[in-house]
């Protein structure tokens, strides 16, 4: 788990513990490089999070990791950071590992998409084999250059990418660590390499 001081990583760690998965929470590229699977968590705004990654050696490390073909899972803001850029708080460049923009949710009842919403797989996928409910909390969403990279979607005002995948790179917009059995099963499959 990449620890770059953004958001509450405790909940995710608690779930990994509960699932009996061994993990390290680290900001050190050397230590992170020894892992099999990487999770990029994140809560909050895009720009300060990206700044934190840039200030450490983590931006470079994540790009090298992604190019190596090893699995990387971004959760919530962590998923959004994988994209090219974001319009949150101006225009900001992301990790640019998956082509696309992070845009404000428009045309929905509230500015923030908060609560449980149906996650619907768009085709057969090992990580998301069935539909279920995920707990979402976000005001911006991922718009991908390649719509084929959207594995599962949800609806809030318009269709919103719930899970994305491009090769070894995965992103989940909702919080699997807060989505009860449905979310825990997803994390388990990721950790076991069943995706």
């Amino acid at each position, binding site marked *: 788990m990449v620890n770059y001081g953004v*958001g*509450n990583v405790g909940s995710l760690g608690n779930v990994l513990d509960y699932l009996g998965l061994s993990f390290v929470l680290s900001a050190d590229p050397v230590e992170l490089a020894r892992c099999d699977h990487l999770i990029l968590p994140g809560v909050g705004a895009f720009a300060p999070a990206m700044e934190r990654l840039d200030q450490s050696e983590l931006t470079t490390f994540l790009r090298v990791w992604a190019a190596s073909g090893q699995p990387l899972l971004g959760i919530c803001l962590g998923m959004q950071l994988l994209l090219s850029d974001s319009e949150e708080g101006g225009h900001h460049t992301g990790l640019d590992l998956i082509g696309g923009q992070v845009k404000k949710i428009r045309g929905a*009842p509230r*500015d923030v998409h*908060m609560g449980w*919403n*149906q996650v619907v797989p768009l085709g057969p996928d090992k990580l998301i084999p069935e539909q279920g409910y995920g707990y979402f909390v976000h005001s911006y969403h991922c718009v991908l250059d390649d719509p084929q990279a959207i594995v599962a979607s949800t609806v809030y005002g318009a269709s919103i990418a719930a899970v994305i995948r491009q090769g070894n790179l995965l992103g989940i917009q909702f919080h699997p660590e807060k989505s*009860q059995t449905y979310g825990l099963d997803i994390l388990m499959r990721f950790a076991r390499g069943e995706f």
Partner: protein
Amino acid sequence: MLTKRIIPCLDVKDGQVVKGVNFVDLVQEGDPVELGARYSDMGADELVFLDISASLEARKHVMELARRVSRQVFIPFTVGGGIREIEDIEGVLAAGADKIAVNTAALRRPELLTEGADRFGSQCIVLAIDVRRIGDHWEVYSHGGTRATGRDAVTWAREAVERGVGEILLTSIDSDGTQAGVDLAITRQVSEVVSVPVIASGGMGKLHHFKDALEDGRADATLAASVFHRAIFTIDEVKTYLHREGIPVRLTGTA
């Protein structure tokens, strides 16, 4: 489709649930973590733990509570009660709570809301507003509903959202405990003026009260205590009813 949330509220004192909770025929006293886990299994969408401990000393228990809940319950939960300073918010969130609810302290010093939202994000700052109807408007009360503040509920809700609050937990003191349904008029007014979700609370007694709060009151979620604790309804019964009435809910298939 985004579902409407059903949230049980547990009152906690010195780290223990105050009122007994009746799960069908089995009354369980005590451990909030066990009860929270039980509600989660039964389909609760979130949990709220309200700490009503009088002493500062007892507050340590609430941190321990948050720590234990976050290790065993994997749905979002809020901790409220006794949050006074930014350090209290930090402590409870660091212990594992997803959100904190603040009431009196925000009335005393509204900047707390701005500071909390700036530092930890709007999504984890819930403002609890207790209101009482005075003629044609609603007045905000502090100190557990005992002190009038002179503030207008709608104005306060609007200011709080401008300050960065991510959610509003609205309780009508008049209807609380009556089991006659929430005050629909103020629920609807607040829901319509703010851009953040509103949780309606106070007065759930019949199944249609949940529907009324969500439909006529335009609320995003409902919070209830005694109807669940006394097993007047299970969460599943409420959700099955709402589903039949055409209101989107998360059906987990557990009874």
